[in-house]
């Protein structure tokens, strides 16, 4: 009897344990509170949107910024300067239900959430790969946003969106837009050549204007190095090919531009169609020139194995004198060269001309970085617009005397020190405020400046480059944050904006692209790097182009052009 009782007890215990474990694995019950339906608009009263505030407050679940958060004072994830402000200003109680540790785990978490049917946050921001964005939109869990855009988008936003309707293209499904693009500074991704001016001066050389000029410069940099390096130590021209010829740093698109094509993007052709830049005849000539320079020792032999950042290191070590990059490379990472060579003077250079006098480089005026998706079950899509509009109008380029004149929150990114308001980080630090971007977990996940007016950045930089005094708080901030080189680069880029080409294809990947693009791109990477080392010759490049077209490239080109026609008509 007692035996049996024991047995039963064992079984019960075991089952209890099984259930316990299973319960832990099941889908977590949705304990995120459903958005409390806020102010029920009574007749003739103004809507919360018109009032600019929800009363009583509503809750909006969201995603906090990716990375290790740092908070000041007693702030926490859901109670900090930013969330208190949102509650106070808009009656929106932002509740962060996701706090991703890094970009990869965030992606995985989102994918798991949509495949296991978990409740998604009311607003989901995503700034990474288009593949995941496509999956999110395809999941059917987010609302079409055009209606909210028409009704609620502010003037700043509409101004940019109307001039650049393509910002919505990547988030379209069956002709309907499902994401609100987050605005970015225009031209921030434009690239140009940077050169060691102090070396040029020491060798009494002019700024190179053509590829031939550049060749002479490289030759002198290597064999008559002003810093006294031996030719064996100097490889004057550094770049990265590991991820392609057009990339975010150590890029080469401006060099290919001299041969009439911008690689890795879709360029408009004289006949009005779009063509892929990497397979144009110009690219072959550019590659042959690079191969020649590689043979002559002007290019580090290891470029094929270097990623974008690694390629900058030889420049930082002072053993290279030419590199490609955006307006900001002298803010980071190439400014590192000044640590060891305080006299190093690095200047941005205008586009160089190729043998036929052609010039070109990539351009980004679309200026969107990331997307905000709104849960289709969220009752107050206007809440996000209220938030974003307000920041665009008041914080992005704050007026003198505005609430955000010196920064977002007093005691965090600005403080009154000795009776003077200041946002100078060193001064703040001396007074015990160690500024960090992550004090404020803005919904748009943009570090530093959550709402960016596309034109404002270059406008301010150019003004400063022209020697004008900074007037607006935004200009003052740029004057503190951005180096002289960055300001010059902005001016150089804008002066030649008409020679630059924007990637004309901004749609979601086409059918054949999804299927074949990774293989086509792999062939491109292989051909490009191997040509550098002479393992593939001119005929090999032609064979690559022929195969590229045959293996799906032709079909992709057709689909891209169909898409282009459908949006330009």
């Amino acid at each position, binding site marked *: 009897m007692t035996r*049996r009782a024991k*047995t039963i007890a064992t079984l019960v215990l075991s089952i209890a344990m099984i259930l316990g474990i*299973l319960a832990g694995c099941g889908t977590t019950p949705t304990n995120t509170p459903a958005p409390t339906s806020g102010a029920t608009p009574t007749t003739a009263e103004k809507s919360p949107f018109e009032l600019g505030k929800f009363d009583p407050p509503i809750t909006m679940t969201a995603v906090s910024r990716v990375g290790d958060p740092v908070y000041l004072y007693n702030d926490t994830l859901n109670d900090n300067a930013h969330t208190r402000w949102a509650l106070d200003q808009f009656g929106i109680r932002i509740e962060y239900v996701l706090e991703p540790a890094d970009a990869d785990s965030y992606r995985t978490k989102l994918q*798991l959430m949509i495949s296991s049917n978990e409740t998604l946050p009311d607003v989901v921001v995503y700034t990474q*790969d288009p593949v995941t964005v496509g*999956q999110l939109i395809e999941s059917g*869990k987010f609302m079409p946003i055009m209606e909210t855009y028409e009704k609620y988008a502010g003037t700043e936003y509409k101004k940019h969106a109307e001039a650049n309707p393509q910002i919505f293209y990547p988030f379209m499904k069956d002709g309907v837009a499902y994401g609100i693009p987050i605005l970015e500074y225009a031209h921030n991704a434009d690239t140009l050549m940077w050169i060691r001016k102090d070396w040029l001066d020491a060798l009494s050389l002019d700024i190179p204007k053509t590829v031939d000029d550049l060749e002479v410069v490289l030759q002198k940099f290597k064999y008559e190095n002003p810093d006294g390096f031996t030719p064996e130590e100097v490889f004057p021209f550094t770049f990265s090919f590991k991820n392609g010829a057009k990339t975010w740093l150590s890029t080469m698109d401006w060099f290919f531009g001299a041969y009439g094509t911008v690689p890795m993007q879709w360029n408009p052709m004289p006949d009005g169609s779009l063509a892929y830049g990497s397979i144009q005849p110009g690219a072959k000539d550019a590659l042959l020139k690079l191969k020649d320079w590689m043979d002559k020792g002007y290019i580090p032999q290891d470029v094929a194995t270097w990623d974008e950042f690694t390629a900058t290191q030889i420049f930082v070590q002072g053993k290279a004198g030419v590199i490609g990059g955006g307006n900001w490379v002298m803010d980071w990472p190439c400014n590192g060269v000044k640590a060891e060579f305080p006299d190093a003077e690095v200047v941005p250079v205008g586009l160089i001309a190729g043998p036929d006098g052609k010039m070109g480089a990539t351009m980004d005026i679309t200026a969107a970085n990331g997307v905000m998706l709104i849960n289709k079950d969220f009752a107050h899509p206007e809440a996000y617009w209220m938030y974003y509009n307000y920041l665009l109008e008041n914080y992005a380029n704050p007026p003198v005397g505005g609430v955000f004149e010196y920064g977002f929150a007093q005691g965090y990114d600005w403080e009154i020190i000795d009776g003077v308001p200041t946002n100078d980080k060193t001064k703040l630090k001396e007074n015990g405020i160690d500024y960090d971007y992550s004090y404020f977990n803005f919904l748009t996940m943009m570090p530093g400046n959550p709402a960016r007016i596309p034109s404002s950045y270059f406008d301010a930089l150019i003004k400063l480059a022209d020697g004008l005094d900074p007037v607006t708080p935004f200009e003052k901030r740029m004057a503190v944050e951005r180096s002289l080189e960055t300001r010059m680069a902005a001016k150089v880029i804008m002066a030649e904006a008409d020679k630059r080409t924007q990637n004309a294809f901004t749609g979601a990947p086409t059918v054949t692209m999804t299927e074949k693009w*990774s293989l086509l791109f792999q062939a491109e990477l*292989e051909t490009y790097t191997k040509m550098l080392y002479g393992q593939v010759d001119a005929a090999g490049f032609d064979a690559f182009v022929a195969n590229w077209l045959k293996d799906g490239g032709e079909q992709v080109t057709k689909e891209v052009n169909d898409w282009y026609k459908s949006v330009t008509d």
Partner: protein
Amino acid sequence: MNTRMWRNRKLHAGARRRNRETALSSLRRNWVLHLMVWPAVILFFIFSYLPMAGIVMAFQNFKPGLGFLNSPWVGLDQFRFLFGYDNFLKVLRNTLVFSLSKYVLNILIPFGFAILLNEVRNRRYKRTVQTIVYLPYFLSWVTLAGILLDMLSTQGLVNTVMARLGMERIMFLGDGFWFRLTVIFSDVWKSFGFNTILYLAALTTVSPDLYESAEIDGANRFRQTLHITIPSLVPITVVVATLALGGLLNANFDQVFNLYNPMVYEKADIIDTFVYRIGLLSGKYSLGAAVGLFKSFIGLILITISYRLAYRFTNYRIF
């Protein structure tokens, strides 16, 4: 002698008697043991058996938004794509070049090293060597790849020394042949110390009596090694070799991914890196599942074969 035989008989009798007992009474007698084993069984079920249901992905066009239940079925399309790809044979060959070389060297070198180390009489020296050689095992490939990329670059330490000695600089990671050598040897270097432990452990179980009697019979150290040490290592070697065979299509993603570049795709691209680029980066999870299934299937066949061979030739059953 007599006592042992008697005890054996008694044991066998006990076993026979227990066989006759019903499952329930066995449960009653050993309920504590059952209680102890159940959590492990359950965890195993949840984390190893339940996920096997994910195999269905290999036959679907899986979309995260639709899940297993609603994703469209595509039959063998994923496999067709995989085997139909021109370069698949090349990728498979690369995988086998890496994994077979690593497989052989990762058995032979630890085996030989264990025997050599076993001959060392100075305990402290032996310990020190053992620790030094097994330390690299704990480095992650991300870290190690960074170090290798730097050391093996054309201006790196290795090439600088070679240039000083009047040799040609070699682009170790940009040339298919050298890339393969780098991958194979860095893998062996990283893991041989750790693998040696297993053999050393097996050697501690060899009875000193055997060596003593061999010495009396006039065998020198070399003879002893040949006729005692090596034969006593054969069973563990067979186990290691058989188990490792199951992973023959795993050529170590971490390592290759962190070291390779477009220059050497042709000789370096392995199944896993290929699937990562072609499948995962573009959201084709089904392709990944199909490849995983394919690899497990080959692994199963290889394990079965080697298990049978091991039994036939060494009369040794692993499980």
